[in-house]
């Protein structure tokens, strides 16, 4: 990425000559803010809980292990939100995938390696269907994915009302596999999450599809008039989100080693919150998937700190998330208000 050189000639009328205004105009600002916030929280954590082992590298790596599934789901949500849409079905698809996987492995006796592509395919197909309806019938994404939320949560219950524990040995060996990493280790789930993150970064910045996602989020009408296949892109975006949710479901299954119809209830909110805190505009078109990583890490760190604090109860996580969400929405508002003048 280049640094902005001083614009010549007509560009003198470029708005916002003050440094503050320029800073506010930089699209990378929110990511920097989130990264700084993460660092600051981490340093505060270090100074407060150093005697309790907060400084261990593994504590940091655990952020990835404990939130790998959320990262994958949030990456999928990033695609949708960048394109100017929203996907409420994330949590349900995750829950459904845990149930489907557990059921296929435990009750049907299928090997996990067969189950994985099935689960991913179902998730992606679900996303495709939602995208198809959204684009072809011009129904608001909010409503369509709400129907998806009900449908997949309902399908969970159709499979079973009870939770299904997974005792399959190959699954548990996968779940317990550790990848040594100098001073600590990562789980398979965390590795997959990081791979997904890298792939998403590549797709969004180095493929035509990725740039179309940004273009549609920036101005759908323009994208259409510029001759971009905006319908296909929209459908693809929801397919990606469905796929990521299913993958997140698989990682969640590994993490928790059971299927339960109520798993990941409301996780779409966590995913959306992570994306927004990571600096992606909910109106679409602006943001970075790297920001989503920091968004997830910040949410994860809040949980860790609350654990370390000991006296704080779990609901502070929600309150802190809401407060952060509010702060970032107001920052975004300030940025877009400036952009309009």
């Amino acid at each position, binding site marked *: 990425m280049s640094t902005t*050189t001083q614009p010549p*000639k007509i*560009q003198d009328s*470029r708005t916002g000559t003050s440094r503050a205004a320029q800073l506010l105009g930089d*699209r990378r600002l929110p990511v920097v803010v989130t990264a700084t916030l993460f660092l600051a929280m981490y340093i505060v954590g270090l100074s407060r809980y150093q005697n309790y082992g907060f400084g261990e590298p593994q504590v940091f790596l655990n952020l990835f292990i404990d939130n790998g599934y959320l990262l994958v789901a949030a990456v999928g949500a990033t695609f949708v939100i960048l394109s100017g849409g929203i996907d409420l079905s994330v949590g349900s698809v995750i829950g459904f995938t845990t149930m489907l996987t557990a059921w296929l492995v435990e009750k049907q006796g299928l090997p996990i390696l067969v189950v994985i592509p099935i689960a991913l395919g179902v998730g992606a197909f679900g996303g495709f269907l939602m995208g198809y309806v959204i684009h072809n019938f011009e129904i608001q994404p909010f409503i369509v994915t709400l129907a998806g939320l009900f449908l997949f949560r309902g399908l969970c219950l159709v499979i079973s009302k009870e939770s299904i524990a997974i005792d399959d040995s190959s699954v548990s060996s996968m779940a317990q596999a550790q990848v040594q990493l100098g001073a600590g280790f990562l789980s398979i789930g965390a590795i997959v999450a990081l791979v997904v993150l890298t792939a998403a970064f590549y797709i969004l910045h180095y493929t035509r599809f990725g740039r179309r996602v*940004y273009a549609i989020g920036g101005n759908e009408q*323009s994208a259409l*008039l*510029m001759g*971009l296949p905006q319908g296909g892109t929209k459908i693809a975006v929801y397919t990606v989100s469905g796929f990521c949710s299913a993958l997140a479901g698989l990682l969640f299954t590994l993490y928790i080693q059971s299927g339960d119809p109520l798993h990941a209830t409301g996780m779409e909110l966590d995913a959306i919150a992570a994306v927004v805190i990571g600096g992606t505009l909910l109106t679409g078109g602006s943001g970075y998937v790297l920001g989503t990583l920091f968004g997830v890490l910040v949410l994860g760190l809040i949980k860790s700190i609350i654990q370390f604090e000991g006296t704080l109860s779990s609901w502070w996580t929600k309150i802190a998330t809401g407060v952060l969400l509010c702060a970032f929405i107001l920052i975004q508002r300030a940025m877009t208000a400036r952009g309009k003048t």
Partner: protein
Amino acid sequence: MAEPRPVLEMTGIVKEFPGVRALSGVDFRLFPGEIHALMGENGAGKSTLIKVLTGVYPLDGGTIALDGQPVRIDSPFQAQQAGISTVYQEVNLCPNLSVAENIFIGREPTRYGRIQWSRMRKEAAELVDRLGLDIDVTAPLSSYPLAVQQLVAIVRSVGTGDSDGAGAGTKVLVLDEPTSSLDRDEVLELFRLMRQLRDEGVAILFVSHFLDQIYEICDRMTVLRNGTLVGEHLVSELDQVGLIHLMIGKEMDQLEGLHEQQLHADVGEPLVKADGLGRQGGISPFDLEIKKGEVVGLAGLLGSGRTELARLLFGADQPDSGKVSIDGKQVSMSAPNDAIAAGVAFCSENRKTEGLVPDLTVRENIILALQASRGWTRPIPVAQRDELVAKYIKALDIRPANPEARVGQLSGGNQQKVLLARWLITQPKLLILDEPTRGIDVGAKAEIQKLVVSLSEEGMSVLYIAAELEEVLRLSHTIGVLRDRKLVAQLANGPEITPTRILETIASGEHQ
């Protein structure tokens, strides 16, 4: 100039909308290497013709030929493929992406599916450079002012089709009012680019409301009026007065009596005084006085600032300078609320987007303004409401005379009457009518004009904007003439004021 074969020929173009024939058999041709102006007032069919050409509207009749070959254009995408690119007044690019991306999106240079950013930036920079522009292609588009964004849109359309940077892909470049919000330097930069493209052989179709610009840049012009072709002329062979004559036309009808009536009417005390009221990019500061019972007409071409002037007087836009007083009291015009409270009413020229609430009924639309001024806690009593609505439906002859009808389903003339009724019910001191007769049938036109005269007799002041000069002349006591966003003259109406006189004032831009 020897006439080579036209690159674009449109013959017998017909386009109909429910109830309106927007284009009836228009011919249009465009030669390579020329800048061609498309002229006409509101409703003349300019934008419809452009939309047919660029594939936004399907054709109802006629043929389009490119380079002598008949073509079918069903979508903007197909138009681009065929070599017809369009740049609209509102820039259709993605402000969140960089300049280079906006130029290349959809045809980015890739290798094995990976976008080659450095190559793309280099090519974009070269293209921009070749066209003599000085733009940092890596900066986000939104960091540039609208003028530059427009130039980028042109660069994109010129580059469309092939990535080697030559303008070979685009044969026809349509520029739909690109200059309406640019300042002088920006316009010059745009013109320089247009000339360069013309010299490279691109045919440019240019729409602008600024006559000076037309005479400065264009080689040839086609004039439309009421959906028909009035003529095609070399710019050098048609002077401004002649052009305005062609655009506005002459329409003599049975309303002559009104004129006499107005000329002999007395007007009263000053009601509205505007002092140096103005808004950057809208209209230069102006002074205007409107007396009680006076009809002030605004004459000027579309885009001359007549609507902008009206909107300032209503607080629909906020002025940067000047003040307004009504009945001797200064009024802060920061929002329509203030103007309404002071007794000003405003019928916008955009009935659909700024006037009607299409889902509501005729009755609800009629009482909306009165109700808004009473606040939600004091509904108009049902009996009084129904009586008022019935009275105005009858007085204005709104059809169907059904207060329960959804207003979106009424014809244009009846919708206009609903809007008039909405404001008349509030008994305003000053009624601003922005093109109240546009897009409605002849009968309704006459009724609305008669209504204006009788309102003024009852002592209501009216600010009347119309594209047809006869209308303005017929109704007004005083005529304000606008040109290029300036109020250039205020003429007291009288026998010596003729359409020709006003046309000359518009054309010369000077008080004579």
